[in-house]
């Protein structure tokens, strides 16, 4: 079983002549996976599409993409199609969208045996069951995709690809849309595929995946490969500045934050024995917590353990079923603020930032100058004020969200996964800012996050919630 994918001098131009990818060279072979690492727009997905032979019709490609001697760029569509499912297969982005919503899990695996590999129905089902069991999906064979979690859907997609046993496996952003605690699993799964002797090519922005996968890494920036080499070397001793910045954006690699004065202020919020359930199901049970001004407390734990619920209870957005919540007395409610996980959804889509902040200033009788100063402090260009949320990046929006909260001189800030939807470099910037501001303004911050490394870096202390909603 061969399975060598060689890319030489590959380039893509848009119909108007704009260069999207300029001269990419890379190679993947069995046992030596290839990771294309880069941010959205770096052209890495185009490389994958070219390898698959599914480049959009308007694009002009040049160079060579060879799969075991077949030139994919010049091959006829039907010739390329004949390779799908036999020589190469792709693990789609967001597999839960790529599974047929109206077909049970088993059928989606079994049809590969039946229709691609020509096995009889009973044997196909048998094999499919075995593949599901291998990936720990034995119990969900009769379920539909909508009944599966994101991680399960990805494993189901992998089971389908295992069924086709292609020598080459392409993976497009395998961690997109997955919770942080599922990302490591995805990397491990891909590595397992590579260890089974398949040629794995992975496109990602996630350094952790590249590290987990090993093999060769090509770092892409603006359509170019800026650095290429064995994963161990590139990820440990990057030579290109961009690679370095990428790596430094990982929370574990952040430099030490400037020291904050020890939290001395009064307790901004405190919870004692707080319980809260939804629809009869307890989510939080007997949690005690207090956050002082100037202190950052992180809450971590697996999905569904009640991290956000705890924050909302502290803010007063939810009423606890039992226990008590105390907030700093004599402080108006709007000085307890919140930062959201998905920055675009935290702004009214039809308002520009100037309108939103202007309304805030008017409502609370604040001077516009104070807000303008904050905008500047958070390193936001004044021109951005006249944009609507859909014209701003996640990082910019999150900083505007900070402006909005800080304008009201908060004592407490619930930061609910404030950086999980941001790209690594922005994530770092926003996190640093948060750290600085907590010290600067005597702000009590409750940081809700999946990311233990981030929590360790940023927080003064960490509360780990267990899956059953207790803090013990």
């Amino acid at each position, binding site marked *: 079983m061969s399975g060598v994918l060689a890319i030489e001098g590959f380039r893509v131009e848009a119909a108007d002549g704009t260069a999207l990818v300029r001269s990419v060279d890379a190679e993947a072979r069995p046992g030596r996976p290839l990771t294309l690492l880069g941010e959205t727009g770096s052209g890495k997905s185009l490389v994958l599409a070219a390898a*698959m032979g*599914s480049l959009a019709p308007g694009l002009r490609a040049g160079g060579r993409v060879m799969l075991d001697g077949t030139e994919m760029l010049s091959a006829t569509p039907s010739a390329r*199609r004949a390779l*799908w*499912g*036999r020589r190469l*297969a*792709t693990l*789609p*982005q*967001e597999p839960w*969208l*790529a*599974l*047929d*919503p*109206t*077909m049970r899990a088993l059928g989606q695996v079994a*049809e*590969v045996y039946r*229709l*691609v590999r020509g096995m009889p129905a009973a044997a196909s089902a048998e094999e499919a069951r075995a593949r599901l069991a291998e990936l720990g999906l034995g119990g969900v064979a*009769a379920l*539909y995709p*909508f009944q599966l979690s994101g991680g399960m859907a990805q494993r189901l*997609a992998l089971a*389908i690809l295992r069924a*086709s046993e292609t020598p080459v496996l392409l993976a497009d952003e395998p961690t997109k849309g997955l919770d942080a605690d599922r990302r490591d699993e995805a990397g491990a799964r891909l590595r397992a595929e590579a260890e089974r002797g398949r040629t794995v090519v992975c496109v990602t922005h996630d350094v952790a995946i590249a590290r987990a996968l090993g093999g060769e890494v090509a770092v892409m920036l603006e359509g170019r490969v800026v650095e290429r080499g064995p994963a161990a070397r590139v990820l440990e001793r990057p030579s290109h500045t961009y690679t370095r910045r990428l790596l430094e954006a990982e929370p574990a690699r952040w430099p030490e934050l400037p020291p904050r004065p020890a939290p001395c202020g009064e307790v901004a919020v405190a919870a004692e024995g707080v319980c809260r359930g939804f629809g009869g199901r307890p989510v939080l049970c007997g949690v005690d917590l207090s956050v002082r001004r100037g202190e950052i407390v992180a809450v971590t734990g697996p999905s569904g353990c009640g991290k956000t619920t705890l924050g909302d209870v502290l803010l007063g957005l939810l009423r606890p079923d039992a226990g008590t919540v105390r907030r700093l007395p004599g402080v108006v409610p709007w000085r307890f603020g919140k930062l959201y996980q998905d920055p675009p959804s935290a702004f009214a889509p039809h308002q520009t930032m100037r309108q939103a902040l202007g309304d805030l200033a008017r409502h609370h009788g604040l001077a516009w100058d104070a807000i303008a100063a904050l905008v500047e402090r958070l390193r936001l260009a004044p021109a951005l004020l006249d944009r609507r949320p859909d014209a701003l990046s996640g990082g910019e929006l999150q900083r505007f969200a900070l402006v909005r909260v800080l304008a009201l001189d908060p004592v407490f800030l619930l930061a609910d996964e404030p950086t999980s939807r941001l790209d690594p470099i922005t994530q770092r910037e926003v996190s640093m800012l948060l750290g600085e501001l907590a010290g600067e303004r005597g702000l009590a911050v409750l940081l809700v996050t999946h990311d233990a490394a981030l929590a360790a870096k940023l927080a003064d202390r960490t509360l780990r919630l267990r899956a059953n909603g207790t803090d013990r």
Partner: protein
Amino acid sequence: MDRHLLGRFLRPVLMRLVQALLVALIIGALGFALMAALPGDQAFRLAAARYGPDMGDAAAAALVHRELGLDRPLAVQFLDWVGRLLRFDLGHSLVTGAPVLEELAMQLGYTLALAGVALPLSALLGLPFGLLAGLRPGGPVDRVTLGLSVLLRAVPAYALGLLLVAVFSIRFRWLPPAGFEGWREFILPALTLALGLAALSARVARDSVAAVAASPYMAFARWKGLPERAVVLRHGLRNAAIPVVALLGLQLIGLVEGLVIVESLFSWPGIGHALVHAIFARDVPVVQGAALVMGLIFVLVNALVDLACALIDPRRPRAAA
């Protein structure tokens, strides 16, 4: 598993059942209240409808009044009607004297026959265009169907019917402009109805096909190595059918409204025509009976559409909840 299935099929049926009761109650109350409040003495109108204008005079009205007990208090008349309704007795037409149920059954036959021709015809006209347009969004077929559908939906149904009559009956004399005897009489009313419905179904089919064709699961099915035939048959058709079947429920409103107009235009002896007539004549039992039957069929077909959707779309109950 069983609970899931029960939830999928039983709950929508139960909800529709409640809706059916609601319909009966509303139509009973509304119809009666409206009819009771109508201007003009009911007996006079009935006399005119029964005996024609020439014989519809005060003496005839007095006769009608006595015969039907219209001098009883309204509340008594209404309770009487509700009581009979609960025994599934819709009473007798005040105009013809025939049992309402019997008359409605006959008219319903005609209406269902017309709808039975018009609906498949609209599918035949609309779906292929929608399919072709959806496979090449933005292509020439798509643009032409979009244009035709927008134009067609702006033509009032009566004008469309008149236009068809002008062309097929008057200009070319191929088809009769009225009547309901044989298959030739079906064509123009059914076509009038079907064209209006096809304009809508072509768009829905187009959007559905385009969405499915561009969906990641169709791409994934191809990447799996499935032959194109299997991709379309196993993954495309069923998913594309979901909105189209759901549209049937929506089509039904258009169908009911279209039926009233087309039946009036072509003098088709269906339930819509009967309803319009009964309103003119203040034939309370027929108005209520016809509205009730139309409302209940509306609910029934919606329930069938629900079931069909639940059959082809496993996500249905969750989406509805």
